[in-house]
């Protein structure tokens, strides 16, 4: 063999030694793990316990509920109450009176006169008397928009307030006195407070109900948007609903908005 051939043969052996086949690698691993079974056991136990822990936390409340279901409700220690019949009867009479009076008080909370419920999630309005529905219809409520000026100095939130409000005033042929945001939103310069540009006629419908804090129930030119949240906080009604509600509610009537 020439020296060149010998060198090639040695290189071939080295390459063969470096590249072991896959079955040989797995055999080597198997040998290694079989030599350290305790580590293997530790690893398996760790993952198994972790899985049990996650499942237990996930179903903890239900598992405890099953235990409560299995536990009987009766068969309990007895409470001894030192009473005589006269005392109990007197107490019963007082309790019955108290419960009846509270029941009447709770029943009287539902207004007997007309009131309005406005659903701002689905933009629906319901005129009620007691528990009876008098009229239902669509409305538009706040658009949940937050208008910010470029310098972030001013901010307006267009949301219809929730809770119980009362009708403060009833207006015929209302005129809209435009606030600053109405100009800022359109990219227009804001006029002075008493400028005639601030007053818009015939945009709020034939009637309006003032709920206080700048919020009104009024009509609209944009009837096609009824049922959608598009307003700047006020409640817009269609012509028919507005007429019915205006004529049925009085000053002081309750308006519930949710």
């Amino acid at each position, binding site marked *: 063999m020439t020296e060149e051939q010998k060198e090639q043969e040695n290189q071939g052996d080295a390459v063969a030694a470096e590249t072991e086949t896959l079955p040989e690698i797995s055999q080597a691993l198997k040998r290694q793990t079989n030599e350290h079974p305790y580590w293997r056991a530790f690893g398996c136990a760790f993952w198994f316990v972790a899985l049990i822990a996650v499942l237990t936390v996930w179903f903890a409340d239900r598992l405890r509920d099953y*235990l409560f279901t299995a536990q009987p409700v009766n068969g309990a*220690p007895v409470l001894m109450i030192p009473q005589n*019949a006269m005392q109990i009867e007197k107490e019963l009479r007082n309790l019955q009176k*108290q419960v009846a009076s*509270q029941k009447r*008080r709770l029943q009287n909370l539902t207004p007997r006169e007309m009131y309005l419920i406005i659903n701002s999630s689905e933009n629906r309005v319901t005129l009620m008397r007691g528990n009876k529905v008098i009229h239902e219809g669509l409305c538009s409520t706040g658009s*949940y928009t937050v208008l910010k000026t470029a310098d972030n100095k001013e901010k307006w939130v267009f949301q219809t307030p929730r809770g*119980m409000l009362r009708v403060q005033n009833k207006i015929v042929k209302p005129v809209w006195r435009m606030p600053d945001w109405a100009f800022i939103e359109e990219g227009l310069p804001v006029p002075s407070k008493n400028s005639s540009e601030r007053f818009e006629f015939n945009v709020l419908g034939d009637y309006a109900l003032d709920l206080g804090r700048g919020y009104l129930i009024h009509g609209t030119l944009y009837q096609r948007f009824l049922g*959608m949240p598009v307003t700047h906080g006020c409640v817009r009604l269609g012509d028919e609903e507005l007429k019915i509600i205006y004529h049925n509610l009085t000053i002081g009537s*309750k308006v519930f908005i949710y």
Partner: protein
Amino acid sequence: MKPFSFLKAGRGVRWFFAILLFFPILFIFSYIIILPFLNLAQKNRPVGVEPAVHDSLTVQSENSSVRKQLLVRRDLKLEDAKQRAQIQLTRLDSIYFFIDLNDSLAAIKIKGVTLRKSKSSRIYSSPVLRHLKQSAKVEEWLAKPLVAQQSWSSFVKHPFKIKNAPKDTLEALAMKVEIMAPEPIDAYCSILFDRNVLLRMRQIEKLSIKGAWPAVKYEAAFRFSRLKGIVNALILLQLPPHYITIDLTLPQADIVAMYRAVPYSCSMMLLF
């Protein structure tokens, strides 16, 4: 390579594995399941009523009638407690939940006026309530409304949109978009009240493909919070709390309307 092949290595390995499994699992079950159950069961031990020690003038028949009167008195006291809680809620200016498990009814009210109500098609309530109803503390429990502490939902509670004021009318015109009707959203929410009462509401309608990811995120956030609570309890060497779960299945629109109507720290009147 078989996963449990190490068990063939010898008895010592098998015992080692068994001990590693047994003690942690025992600890987990005891700490998370058994001990809180025993603690809660002890606090809500049911009680009965029995007349006082008899004197020589008392006869057996009088004792049974006194027993009946005591039971009527207990019912009246519970009714009184519920009414007091409701009257307390009517003094608030905010909307509150009203859940009646006897009628499967979920409602929102303000000042005692029902704004919206919905019947649950499927209802699950923790059996702890059954035990609580028979315990001595039930009157005190019913007399005080529950107050929300934390909530999770698969939809936004307040869907605010930020709009930057346009510089001029041209930009304002360009910003105007066609107003679209709001899309239906998949509704799942949970509210945790004080005294560990958990109100969960899920929609009757099937989950949509679009709503799958928000629903997964919501459930993951809730479960993670639960896990955090257990870990915190472990660190403070306390028992993890048991949530008294009330699971309601309601129409999607009702869940969205009710959840958006109530404030973050809303109150709840629970009748059971």
